């Protein structure tokens, strides 16, 4: 059972410290929800985990199965089994979903002997996942995220998650900007993929997605630190009461 450990992580963006000592351990099969006010550093944590060049780790460590990945470039982190569903997926004009997915699939699933999967294997996997998530085939000929609606973008992220089969997935507000039906589709999609082989860190402002994907733990990130952790009831309390009560408290529970 693989583990993702975040140890006393400090990170800066443009010279400003945003993460001020984050501690978190996620095992494959667990679902952790991460909540917290706007600007508290949730996306920063997500980007830092994947190694975005603008986000600099100043101290602390990120480990997968005990091996530090902080020195790895993003592609090596992806190959180590880490995945990020972006809050704002990037558009890449002129690149079809098909050619992008094939390249991503090949990079992540190339075996030790350097044999990439065949076109046939890829098509099989892709068709299976498209069916699972109810994605239309015409998607494949569209340019990556170009002109995608909010719902389509999020669904495309989940399709990638399904296809790349990481050990750990960070879902950054995968539920934002979706109408009720789209939320249901996306959330059900995630719950189909989640299982004993996937550890999930789901960043959200709302309790509603957690109805579909039951969290094992809920954490609150506040001003660059995890200031509260608990079970599902914590998310209910946050939805009802907001984050105000956390101001008075400091360094609580694990």
């Amino acid at each position, binding site marked *: 059972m693989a583990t993702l450990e975040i140890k006393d992580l400090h990170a800066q963006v443009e010279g400003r410290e945003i993460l001020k000592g984050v501690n978190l351990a996620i095992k494959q099969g667990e679902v952790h929800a991460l909540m917290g006010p706007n600007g508290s550093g949730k996306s920063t944590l997500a980007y830092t985990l*994947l190694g*975005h*060049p603008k986000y600099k780790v100043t101290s602390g460590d990120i480990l997968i199965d005990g091996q530090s990945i902080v020195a790895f*470039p*993003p*592609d090596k*982190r*992806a*190959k180590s089994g880490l*995945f*990020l569903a*972006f809050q704002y*997926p*990037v*558009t*890449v*004009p*002129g*690149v*079809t979903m*098909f*050619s*992008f997915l*094939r*390249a*991503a699939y090949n*990079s*992540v699933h190339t075996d030790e002997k350097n044999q990439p999967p065949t*076109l046939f294997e890829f098509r099989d996997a892709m068709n299976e996942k498209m069916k699972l998530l109810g994605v239309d085939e015409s998607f*494949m*000929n*569209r*340019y*990556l995220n170009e002109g995608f609606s909010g719902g389509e973008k999020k669904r495309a992220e989940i399709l*990638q998650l399904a296809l*790349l089969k990481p050990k750990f997935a960070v879902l950054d507000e995968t539920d934002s900007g979706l109408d009720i039906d789209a939320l249901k589709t996306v959330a059900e999609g995630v719950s189909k993929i989640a299982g004993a082989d996937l550890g999930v860190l789901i960043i959200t402002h709302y309790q509603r997605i957690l109805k579909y994907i039951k969290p094992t733990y809920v954490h609150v990130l506040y001003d660059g630190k995890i200031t509260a952790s608990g079970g599902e009831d914590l998310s209910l309390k946050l939805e009802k009461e907001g984050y105000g009560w956390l101001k008075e408290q400091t360094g609580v529970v694990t």
Partner: protein
Amino acid sequence: MALQPVGAFTEEKVHALSSAFREPDWLTSFRLQSLKDFRSLPLEISPLYTKYTGISNFDPTRFSVDAPTEKVDLRSHYEGYLTGKETNVILQGNSTTIHVDLDETLSKSGLEVLNIHEAIAKEEDLLRSLFQDKLVKSSGEKYAAFNNAFFNAGTFIHVPRGVELKKHPLRKLLLIKNPGTSVVEQTIIYVEESSSLNFLEELYTSASDAPYLVSSVVEVRAHASSHVDASSLQLMDDRATYLVNKEVAAANDSHVNITSILLGSQITRSRLNFDLNGRGANTEGFEVFFCDGSQRFDLESNLLHNSPDTTAALHARGVLKQESQSIFKGMIKIAHNAKNSSSYLAHHAMLLDKGARSDGIPGLDIETNEVKATHSASVAQVDEEQVFYLMARGLSPDEAKKMIVIGFFEPVLSRIPVEMAREGAKFIIEGKWYGERRRLIDRESLMAITGEAPVEVKHGSDVFERHYKYRA
């Protein structure tokens, strides 16, 4: 024969060439007048552009021009370049046309493909009139004048009235192999009323032991209601200095597509003009370049609307790596009588390295109302957020950038209506990314490679619907 001094661009040289080819006097006079223009013209005539002359400046006296004397043997010259299955090809080795092969359909169609000096001997009146009213004018540009004065090779392609050859691509392969002289060639394409032609030229180097000069003039005369596709893939090695002047004269209701895929050479200096002379003429141009190392590309393209109801679009798009540089100059000119015309001119460049540089200067000169004219230009660095996104999915930085670059070319490439030019361009651009000098292969093998992924071809979409900068 005593060797001429290198770079002696003199009257004597003109006479020597002219007599070696046994040319009629009118052609000798034409060459001599062109020599005068070559000597007197500056590198740039327009004051708008004079400060950009450095990019394609070179010393022409390093190169000599002579009539070809070498005997080029088809087999040894083209070894490894031909599969033997080629039909409808013109093979030119350095300055010598060595082979014209037409299949039954083309040879019975009335199509004429001749070496230019054969054509002058055979159809002197027609050729004389074409030289008297030259499309690529010596007075128009310094190296057009150079070519007109010193050409030592050429091809005349004549499609008679009512002959449709759109579906039968005619390829010309120019293969450079240690040329003893500069290759200065003219391609004159003469397509009569209601006819069509699909012409594709490829320029390669198989060996070069010294820097060399290749100068091409390409003229397309598209008569009323004709359809001409003329494409070129320039893949010469980095010892080449490549000068090209293309000029299109489009008559009433004619349709002309010009594609230039520019990858090779140390210096490329390209001039491409569309003269929309007849009512309802419609032209589209594609200029795609991808340079690296210390390559220099100097491109100028003009859309000249001289009649009502004409439509022109020009898409220039390039990617620059390392220390390479490019400049694009373009002008839309709509004459006072060219009412109800539409014109679109775009130049977009992407820089992959800090040392790369690109400038674009599009302009408008519009003398009438009731037209649509749009131009757009951009020069951008590769987007780091895109690179991160792709890397977060496991792509290496190099693969990520390659994907972004291919995607950047895609909107222009996918509009190219000529299949071999379009798919060939994708194939060789990808090759250049990997540092391979690829060449066009036969259609089936090409489709097997590039046709693997479904591609949504988006040509036919109307560029005028989307961009408006100017509307009168």
